[in-house]
């Protein structure tokens, strides 16, 4: 039996529309509903993590002022903030949220290939979030081991949360990985097999290339976290010695012997570094589409952008030990990993240049999504440049345990992806809800967030150069820290609180525009990609009405000479009524690619 592509037998497939409230909105198998469920859950835990960071900043800016923030709480806040932000917010939001919403719509499919598994993915994710948050309410509270959960301290008495917190954390991670795997298999299969007629891989919008590669990275890298979580759970619960060396704790010789904490670090970062790109690649992709749409220009160097995504994906597996320069590993390893780390800067820089060149002489429309996208170029460039500092062993050694590192990774993988998250939410909000958000509030949100993050993180680089150590609950009397460092810390805290509060504007805007926003129409940004060409806005179950779309061009036909509009949607065939338009290659004389 020859295989017939999904798009070619659409009329044979029966579509069952959900009928009851529960199958429509709760146990829904519709990718759009699942995407919203994922996003709302992720934004909710993100909000929890934001509050935690506010508490940490209160302690750092004004030590000895807030009696309720004890050292124990402080370390628990650090740990939960980091883990939630990286995994339960960013990974879940980019892949579970945007991936779910955009993949079927952008490729012209009716849904994911395995809707039931897609639904299970969300529910397992929800359970993992509940397990994680439940650790706030168990004896001893959540773990305070730091988001890297390094043994031996993660499971030894003295670290907060060694009773229940660490076990719940590991279980939550394992569940998250199961959920992600179910979703990830869906994303990969759907992109490969459910594309509409004419949607070749090279006609995919870059958003999907980013999401696709990030999913592959996630599928291959998350097992490393799973392995380390399983082995650590056994060390903690059963008493094996995978990671635990012979150790004396509080005057008592423990039963462990011979284990290797470094082994954990290798496994953890074997996952941990690809994780950076699991978050960054979807951001790269989404921001490319935002920039192109709002600059009314084709993305500069589409093929090069795709190759850069592939190169980054491949290289991301061979740089992990640059997180371990100070672990005491063989110095020759350091040389190798510094080299690979610097090489990965090449495809990344190509992407940054191409974004800037996309803006060059574009007909830029400074809409709110565009502001966030341009903001991303700034924050990502800054965070990326400090990454080149830290990628070198000799520079990393003195800076590794200082605020320089905190500033670096927050700029590059905290602020930058979040800028894209905001930009993308504003960009697709009209499609998801059918209404426009409030532009004035959006502008306030952007400017406070963008300038505020600089007020927070630029001074941290300076603190790092001064040698101010990270992870400390309180600095105490330290001779090497000038008075200005303490003043700076206060300023950072105030900025952080303002930026944190400004996110309420965003939430208010999202919620109030649901009711009060003006009707958006089906394509308010005049974009070319398929999700803007649905017959209904918001798209109904099945997305496309009776006929699946057919694709005739790539996703970036903006400002094509000789065409009456400044954009041509992907499903528009050649128009013979326009002179010279059907004579071959309309796009080739206005900015080349590759």
């Amino acid at each position, binding site marked *: 039996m020859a295989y017939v592509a999904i798009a070619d037998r659409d009329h044979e497939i029966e579509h069952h529309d959900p009928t009851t409230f529960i199958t429509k909105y709760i146990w829904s198998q519709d990718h759009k509903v699942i995407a919203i469920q994922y996003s709302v859950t992720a934004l909710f835990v993100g909000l929890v993590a934001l509050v935690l960071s506010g508490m940490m900043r209160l302690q750092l800016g004004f030590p000895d002022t807030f009696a309720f923030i004890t050292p124990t709480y402080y370390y628990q806040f650090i740990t939960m903030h980091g883990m939630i932000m990286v995994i339960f917010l960013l990974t879940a939001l980019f892949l579970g949220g945007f991936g779910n919403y955009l993949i079927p719509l952008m490729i012209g499919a009716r849904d994911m290939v395995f809707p039931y598994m897609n639904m299970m993915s969300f529910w397992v994710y929800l359970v993992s979030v509940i397990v994680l948050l439940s650790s706030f309410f168990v004896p001893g509270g959540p773990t305070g081991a730091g988001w890297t959960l390094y043994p031996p301290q993660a499971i030894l008495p003295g670290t907060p949360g060694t009773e229940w917190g660490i076990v719940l954390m590991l279980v939550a991670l394992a569940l998250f990985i199961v959920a992600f795997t179910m979703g990830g*298999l869906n994303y990969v299969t759907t992109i490969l*097999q459910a594309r509409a007629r*004419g949607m*070749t891989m090279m006609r995919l919008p870059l958003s999907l290339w980013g999401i696709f590669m990030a999913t592959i990275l996630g599928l291959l890298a998350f*097992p490393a976290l799973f392995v380390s979580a399983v082995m650590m759970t056994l060390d903690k619960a*059963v008493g094996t010695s995978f990671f635990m060396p012979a150790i004396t704790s509080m005057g008592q010789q423990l039963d462990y012997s*011979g284990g290797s904490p470094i082994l954990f670090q290798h496994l953890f970062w074997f996952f941990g570094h690809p994780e950076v790109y699991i978050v960054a690649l979807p951001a790269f992709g989404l921001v490319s589409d935002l920039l192109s749409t709002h600059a009314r220009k084709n993305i500069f160097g589409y093929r090069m952008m795709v190759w850069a995504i592939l190169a980054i994906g491949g290289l991301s597996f061979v740089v992990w030990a640059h997180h371990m320069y100070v672990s005491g590993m063989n110095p020759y390893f350091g040389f190798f990993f510094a080299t690979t780390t610097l090489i990965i800067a090449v495809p990344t820089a190509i992407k940054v240049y191409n974004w800037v060149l996309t803006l060059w002489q574009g007909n830029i429309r400074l809409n709110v999504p565009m502001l966030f996208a341009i903001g991303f170029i700034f924050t990502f460039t800054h965070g990326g440049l400090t990454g080149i500092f830290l990628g070198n062993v000799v520079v990393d050694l003195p800076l590794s345990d200082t605020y320089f590192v905190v500033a670096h990774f927050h700029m590059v993988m905290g602020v930058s992806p979040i800028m894209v998250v905001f930009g993308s939410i504003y960009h697709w909000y009209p499609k998801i809800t059918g209404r426009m958000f409030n532009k004035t509030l959006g502008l306030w949100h952007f400017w406070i967030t963008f300038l505020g993050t600089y007020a927070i993180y630029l001074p941290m680089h300076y603190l790092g150069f001064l040698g101010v150590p990270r992870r400390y609950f309180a600095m105490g009397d330290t001779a090497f820290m000038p008075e200005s460092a303490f003043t700076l810390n206060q300023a950072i805290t105030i900025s952080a609180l303002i930026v944190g509060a400004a996110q309420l504007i965003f939430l208010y805007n999202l919620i109030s525009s649901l009711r009060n926003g003006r009707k958006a129409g089906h394509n308010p940004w005049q974009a070319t990609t398929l999700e803007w060409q649905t017959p209904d806005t918001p798209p109904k179950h099945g997305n496309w009405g009776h006929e699946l779309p057919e694709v*005739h061009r790539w996703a970036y036909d903006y400002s094509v000479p000789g065409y009456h509009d400044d954009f041509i949607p992907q499903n528009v065939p050649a128009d013979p009524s326009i002179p010279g338009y059907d004579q071959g290659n309309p*796009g080739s004389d206005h900015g080349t690619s590759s």
Partner: protein
Amino acid sequence: MTFALVFLGVIMATIIGWLLRQSLNTQPWEANDPLENQPGRGVLNVEPAKIALISFIAVVTSLFALFLSAYLMRMKLGDWNPLTEPKLLWLNTGLLVLASIAFQLTRSASKRAQLPTVKAGLVAGGVCTILFLLGQLVAWQQLNAGGFFMTGNPANAFFYLLTALHGLHLIGGMWVWGRTTTRVLTGADAQSVYLSVELCTVYWHYLLLVWIVLFALLLST
């Protein structure tokens, strides 16, 4: 980590190589290449479920490769005390081979629409797998009775962990096997379950391969 790296390198090279080939000699900015809109063009000539299974196999390969990497790294440390594996494992290996053969025969029978062979093959494959799993449990008991506890030595801990993990993956496969067998026994015809049977066959062959690698490693260290 070299072990895991090599495996991941092969997987990533395959994926990236395939994707690169999609991008060469294309000029996506040229609209309306009539060839692009032929039915099925650009889509792999494979059932989606098979792609999902192959992707899942890649994930499981990554998982086991990382465990084996951890095994090899942990082995080098001083307190490693090699474990003598129960002889029973040889018998278990034989059972798993039989299960794999049964699935292979079922697959051919399903293609040729021979319903009795499909029924018998599915039942035989399932029974051999269950016997394998029970055999693994007995092996655990033998070790436990011999005083080789999980906490005694990292070699023991890895043995229990790896066999448990492999067994869990088989149990996951048994779920699909159970659904397929129920369908066949309640009247489905032989060809309608072909895809499920084929997925089971691929998965069982794969898990047999994993077991052989694990067993060889456990025996040799």
